[in-house]
């Protein structure tokens, strides 16, 4: 589905994007993600297509705000029956129950929202939105109101049901994990839409620094293009010369930022050291800190460059990494992503 919208208030926004399958609108808070969803739902004045000129109650969209907005005075079943007011009462209940079954939660029918967990509330809200038989689903920060510990598991199941239903879905989020699950990602900044494409493409090749941050890059090495040679670009960066893949736009002398994911900074095993090719940008330095993060470890490397690293436990155990140790890391050219500086 093609979406073209122009908003004036509360943010100025002119946007043309494609919603395909599960599409994530990725952006920092305050760039207008929620406003765009509300405009699509008819809750904010805007020009554009589809649905232009229709009042909110006439638009075939399912809208889920961040906290799901279940009616607290109605049971789950009554909530789902709310959009089915055009049906006779018996038919209405039966239909509402069908939508709860569709989301796998028929047993929650008699419960009130305050008796439901965040994940359960989300499913009831989705069942209610689906009862409207929408042509487009709009989800505002669908993972933010979920319990952090179980959020990925809980939402993966919801996502699977959404995929089965095959309704185009636009989810506004700043959650890189969610964007990774998407069929399509559109990156929004205060300047407008910056990039859109498949999630693999956007994650591997963000077009600028802001997008690189949004998709989870943590190391940003500022430098200058020193030379271009075939497939390679040489980057002078804090006294070090890094070899990277040459992007089409690079010109000698141009300032660039080399972006590296923390988990793609590779700690070199001393016994493998001699086998490594020279172009792998080997750097020697000290491990400044090492802290557990989830099941891995986040470390700080200080050598010719400062780097943030994320290691799986087994690497730390095998290499016996400790704070204060001298280590060698490698920045493989294929993991060095260049954006204009």
């Amino acid at each position, binding site marked *: 589905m093609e979406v073209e919208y122009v908003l004036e208030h509360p943010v100025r926004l002119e946007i043309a994007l494609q919603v395909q399958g599960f599409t994530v609108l990725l952006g920092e808070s305050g760039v207008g993600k929620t406003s765009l969803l*509300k405009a699509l*739902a*008819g*809750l904010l004045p805007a020009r554009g297509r589809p649905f232009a000129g229709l*009042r*909110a*109650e*006439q*638009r075939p*969209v*399912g*809208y*889920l*705000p*961040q*906290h*799901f*907005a*279940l*009616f*607290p*005075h109605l049971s789950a079943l009554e909530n789902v029956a*709310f*959009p089915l*007011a055009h049906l006779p009462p018996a038919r209405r209940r039966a239909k509402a129950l069908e939508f709860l079954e569709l989301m796998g939660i028929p047993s929650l029918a008699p419960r*009130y*929202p*305050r008796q*439901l*967990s*965040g994940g359960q*509330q989300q499913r009831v809200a989705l069942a*209610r*939105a689906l009862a*409207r038989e929408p042509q487009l689903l709009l989800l505002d920060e669908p993972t*933010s*109101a*979920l*319990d*952090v510990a179980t959020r990925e598991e809980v939402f993966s199941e919801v996502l699977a049901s959404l995929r089965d239903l095959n309704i185009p879905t636009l989810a506004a989020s700043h959650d890189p994990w969610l964007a990774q699950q998407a069929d399509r990602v559109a990156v929004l900044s205060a300047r407008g839409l910056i990039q859109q494409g498949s999630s693999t493409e956007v994650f591997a090749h963000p077009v600028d620094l802001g997008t690189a941050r949004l998709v989870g890059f943590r190391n940003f090495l500022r430098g200058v293009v020193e030379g271009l040679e075939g497939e390679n670009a040489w980057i002078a960066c804090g006294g070090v010369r890094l070899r990277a893949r040459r992007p089409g736009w690079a010109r000698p002398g141009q300032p660039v930022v080399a972006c590296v994911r923390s988990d793609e900074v590779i700690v070199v095993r001393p016994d493998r050291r001699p086998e490594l090719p020279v172009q792998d940008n080997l750097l020697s330095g000290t491990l400044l800190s090492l802290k557990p993060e989830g099941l891995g470890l986040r470390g700080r490397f200080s050598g010719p460059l400062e780097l943030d690293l994320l290691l799986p436990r087994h690497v730390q155990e095998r290499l016996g990494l400790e704070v204060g140790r001298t280590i060698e890391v490698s920045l493989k050219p294929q993991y060095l992503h260049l954006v204009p500086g």
Partner: protein
Amino acid sequence: MLEPLLLTLRLALLTSLALLLLAGPLAWVLAKREFRGRGLLETLLLLPLVLPPTVLGFYLLLLLGKNGPLQQWFGLSLAFTFEGILIGSVVFNLPLALSNYREAFRTIDDDLLQTARTLGAGRWRVLREVVLPLAAPGLLSGTLLVFAHVLGEFGVVLMVGGSLPGETQVLSIYIYELTQALRLEEANRVALVLVGLAFGLLLAIRSLEARWKSNTSSSTPSASR
């Protein structure tokens, strides 16, 4: 005692109903709409809260009394009548009703109202099926509070209505007159009735508010569950 009691209850009932109809929509506008001059309007409407009842009563008397604008334009002289003290009582209790109703509406999450519209409900259905059920306990407790407050009204009623038995002599004024006449036993009986009524009403309001809180607090789920 029966005559002033019935008069007082009638005044309280009519004042509460009038304010529900008048202050209800006004409170909705103040709670949910942004417009120029809202602060000014709110201040003006809350003014009777801080004015001495005698000041308010004085101006009402000028407005409603002989040769007042109401008589000149409509031929109505409402001073020293039941209708007169009803108007005084409505104006005097407007801030109380308004601030309670406004709170009742304010706690309704805008997300609920907007989502209801995306689910196909027009404004009228949103009002009937979302706003009113959610605000009902708050509206009811505000109305009871006004009712209780009118039971004890003195200054404004005395200024606008004086103390005519059967017409404007409410319980609190009756107690005052009994005390002046040193009929202390009767004064005590009447006062006890007022204490009992006030206690019962406050208890009802409290339980309503507890219900209301448990209802509205669930509109935003806690992420920790």
